[in-house]
């Protein structure tokens, strides 16, 4: 794995757990001098475990959002290099820009060769700036489109990893026609005749996520979120308040489980307890298994069938009377 795994930074809702852990650590240090404390420690450990279980089994939507945005959450490059340490990176839109927020790759996973793209948030500050905090410019979507066409030409299936707050809302992004870049991807990805599997690994933010999300099968990691607008945006427009983010999260039904219930995605991939950042290997392994299983099924279809399967899937979305 490219990134060193550090001790997970606790989130706000995990504070009680963190305090308990600190206390236990302090107690442990005194243990050699005061063996009689062993019973206390055991009780604390039980308390810790039960708190952990109850905490993680009663997560609010905004807690999922916090985990999805955790700064230590595994990113696209982490998954690629875990799955295929010799993965080949493909750069550029051929027209002036190599957008760091969109990573292109040739991957071989369990013997399946594929073209992969994914949004990348960046870990260090410099890295984050290079990746524009995971918000692609139009050129990033056009790089992805170039690779979709490459995949289609060479009959290679496509994998898309989604973890983005959304498409970048900037001056040049608008000038270079962000709308057109997204719209063209939606249209072209609908039309490819190779299997497409997408997975939301963190934030699935609006049209900027969907632009690499028109897939035959859509997976979401357990704590990832997917929404039509950021909860902050939703709160500020509908509640006219920045304090109502939790309400917005709740109202929009943006968690993996809820979106599965709405029939938009196909599978929720479980994460290690507390979130993928607690154990990259397990998270990557779980996701890989699901991707390989879905791809294997889709590879049995003819090119015409695989396109029809995808178009039919999206044709059904909607609720009206």
């Amino acid at each position, binding site marked *: 794995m490219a990134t060193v795994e550090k001790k997970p930074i606790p989130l706000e809702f995990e504070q009680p757990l963190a305090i308990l852990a600190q206390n236990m650590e302090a107690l442990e240090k005194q243990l050699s001098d005061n063996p009689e404390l062993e019973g206390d420690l055991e009780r604390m450990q039980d308390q810790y475990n039960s708190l952990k279980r109850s905490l993680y089994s009663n997560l609010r939507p905004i807690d999922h959002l916090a985990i999805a945005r955790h700064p230590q959450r595994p990113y696209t490059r982490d998954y690629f290099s875990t799955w295929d340490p010799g993965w080949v990176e493909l750069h550029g839109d051929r027209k002036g820009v190599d957008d760091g927020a969109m990573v292109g790759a040739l991957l071989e996973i369990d013997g399946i060769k594929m073209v992969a793209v994914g949004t990348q948030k960046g870990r260090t500050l410099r890295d984050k700036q290079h990746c524009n905090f995971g918000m692609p410019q139009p050129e990033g979507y056009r790089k992805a489109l170039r690779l979709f066409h490459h995949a289609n030409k060479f009959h290679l299936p496509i994998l898309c990893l989604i973890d983005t707050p959304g498409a970048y809302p900037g001056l040049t992004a608008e000038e270079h026609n962000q709308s057109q870049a997204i719209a063209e991807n939606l249209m072209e990805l*609908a*039309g490819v005749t190779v299997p497409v599997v997408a997975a939301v690994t963190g934030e699935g933010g609006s*049209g900027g996520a969907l632009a690499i999300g028109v897939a035959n099968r859509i997976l979401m990691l357990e704590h990832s979120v997917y929404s*039509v607008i950021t909860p902050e945006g939703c709160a500020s427009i509908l509640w006219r308040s920045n304090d109502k983010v939790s309400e917005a999260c709740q109202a929009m039904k943006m968690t993996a489980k809820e979106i599965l219930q709405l029939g938009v995605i196909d599978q929720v991939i479980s994460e290690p307890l507390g979130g993928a950042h607690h154990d990259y290997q397990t998270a990557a392994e779980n996701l890989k298994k699901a991707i390989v299983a879905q791809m294997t099924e889709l590879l049995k279809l003819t090119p015409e069938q695989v396109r029809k399967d995808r178009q039919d899937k999206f044709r059904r979305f909607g609720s*009206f009377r």
Partner: protein
Amino acid sequence: MEELEEMDLKDWFASRQKRKEIQEVIKQPLTTDEYCALWKQCFQCRELLYTRDLRTNLDVCPKCDYHFRVGALDRIEQLADEGSFDELDADMRSSDPLTFFDTEAYVKRQDEATRKSGLREAVLTGLCRIDGHEAALGCMDFGHFGGSMGSVVGEKVTRLTEAALERNSPLIVVSSSGGARMQEGILSLMQMAKTSSALKSFADSGNLYISILTEPTFGGVTASFAMLGDFIIAEPGARIGFAGRRVIEQTIRQKLPADFQTAEYLLKHGHVDMVVSRNKLKETLARLIAFHKPAPKVAAEKKVSGEPSAAGRT
């Protein structure tokens, strides 16, 4: 306007025509409300305009060419040949898939929107003729729920696309929208993909799609079907973009150019084929449709050579 929901579109046009006639007959001193209904001030040049003149001029200020927003019904009247519009999916209405509630329930907001706009949803779709040419026409209405795209807008645009494909008709969509409808959550977002996917099949069929961008068109609508036209036409002064001006200013922390995201700015930056004044719009559409119409069979049969279909159309 409650009874409007039970009326069909043709009745509505008919009754409006009747009302117009009545207005012209009765001449009595005006109340303030009536005065306000008769006169309108231009948002741009501040000129006081006689409402009826403004209507005759397709809601374009005769002094400064400011293009007022136009509702879906008026737009259809402006573009479709008289009496030719045959509405599709007139009864389709939003449901409430998320049982969404912010400071008010979504279902209540839907009723409010209908009361305000007199429409069931933010788009009207149908088959019509434009200067005699058959066409599938969709017109969005910003006055209904900010022209936002939920399941119904997505479904109606998709069905219109499918209807056009089935008939090998050109497809014309007049957009005006604030973006996706948040109250339908992820299902709203998926409408972007649904409409674009339908347009992919339509594009593969070799039929013509003309997208018309009007004040204002933003977000999920711009980033899907509105930007996928074989031709993209914008109305003068219309503001069009992906992200809103304020969001961008907050993000980049700098002032944007005054003409940012206007139709003219988009033309300069190569996003649209042309900016066309409203009073030239219908004839432009007719011209483009005629230009892209396959040659009639007779012309093909007249060819001396027995070779298969020509590569071009004369």
